[in-house]
């Protein structure tokens, strides 16, 4: 059993310079209260890992706005002009990764695999400086696993074991990130007693979740 902590308490666990994965797709399914708390405590030099940087004022965009971030690993930053501006100004370093490769690299990091062998990116700039393996006559890039110090998730329901459910397109990168960080913090719309979520409805095993963030901060 885990007691819920506040978003502020959670933000205090995350030191400056940490690497932080976050769920969300253009802000949908993102842990907004955790972002607010991190921005409020003035976190610095974070490496953030997620699909995109949403928009200014939305989702992880709040951390970009607040100057918390110096490095980004993402598949897309086109929706956030602040990210673009800071990248061009040299304030933020950006690594762009194809979306499916990003998902698999995080999956490899969380499931003990040594890397990902993907055809995506072969013959493009993504392949630069990477090993290419020929397997059965086709070329595959060897992409490295990704792990982070923290994963910040947004769930629909959580129970006090940490078991999580997601709603519709708000799942996106949340489930895979639960496997790939040393400390997993989940913010949810609801926290329910253990035994309320049916076993087949759980999408993230509670054993992966270190901290729950309660509804009221």
């Amino acid at each position, binding site marked *: 059993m885990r007691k819920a902590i506040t978003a502020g308490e959670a933000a205090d666990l995350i030191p400056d310079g940490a690497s932080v994965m976050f769920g969300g*797709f253009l802000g949908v399914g993102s842990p907004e209260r955790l972002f607010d708390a991190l921005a409020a405590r003035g976190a610095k030099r974070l490496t953030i890992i997620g699909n995109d940087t949403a928009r200014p004022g939305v989702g992880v965009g709040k951390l970009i706005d607040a100057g918390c971030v110096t490095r980004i690993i993402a598949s897309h930053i086109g929706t956030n002009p602040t990210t673009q501006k800071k990248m061009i100004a040299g304030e933020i370093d950006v690594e*762009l990764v*194809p979306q499916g490769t990003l998902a698999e690299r995080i999956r490899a990091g969380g499931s003990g695999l040594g890397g990902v062998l993907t055809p*995506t990116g072969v013959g493009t700039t993504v392949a630069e400086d990477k090993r290419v393996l020929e397997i059965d006559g086709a070329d595959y890039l060897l992409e490295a696993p990704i792990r982070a110090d923290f994963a910040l998730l947004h769930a629909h329901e959580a129970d006090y074991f940490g078991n999580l459910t997601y709603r*519709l*397109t708000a799942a996106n990168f949340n489930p895979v990130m639960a496997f790939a960080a040393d400390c997993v913090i989940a913010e949810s719309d609801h926290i329910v007693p253990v035994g309320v979520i049916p076993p087949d409805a759980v999408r993230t095993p509670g054993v992966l979740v270190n901290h729950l963030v309660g509804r009221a901060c």
Partner: protein
Amino acid sequence: MDAKEVIARRVALELRDGMLVNLGIGLPTLVAAYVPDGMHVAFQSENGIIGFGAPPPQGMEDPNLTDAGGGFISALPGAIAFDSVTSFALIRGGHVDMTVLGGLQVDSKGRLANWMVPGKIVPGMGGAMDLVTGAKRVIVAMQHSAKGAPKIVEELTLPPTAARRVSLIVTELAVIEPTEDGLALRERAPSVEIEEIIANTGAKLSIPAHVPEMAFIAG
């Protein structure tokens, strides 16, 4: 019909019953409006849904139900939701029958560039590289030229999205098929002369004796 409608209605002719189709953001999304009556096509959005429909009435949007462009959508009967890992297992695994994507350039080898302009815009590839690599058919739906400059070129000057040869290029002027031997003109838009197509194309086109006029899905 304006250029975009010409393109969308011609691309819709490529749809087949039972297909799983992924439409890129922008022009390609227009194709969804032209699914022939009685045909069932399942649309995937790579953020995690198959079987979405038009935006719901105002005030009935669900913040957890959006497409890959972040727009609100509805769920049709039989819709299913899944995470990003599953979404790209579908895409890279060859389970998406067709993707329709916008393009900045296509070259004589059929290679597509659509994700960045060095020194100008670097939005990132999002799911495009996986889609072009993994979908069974890749249809490029784009205007034939950009500010008077051909987008169909001999050799890409922009970074490619994938090494793979795309299946078909549909513009408001022509339908062009990249083949092992280069680009082949397949159809011309109504009242467009072959000379006009050649003049607006920056790569060699092989022109068969008969170039039929484009057909369209009814509007």
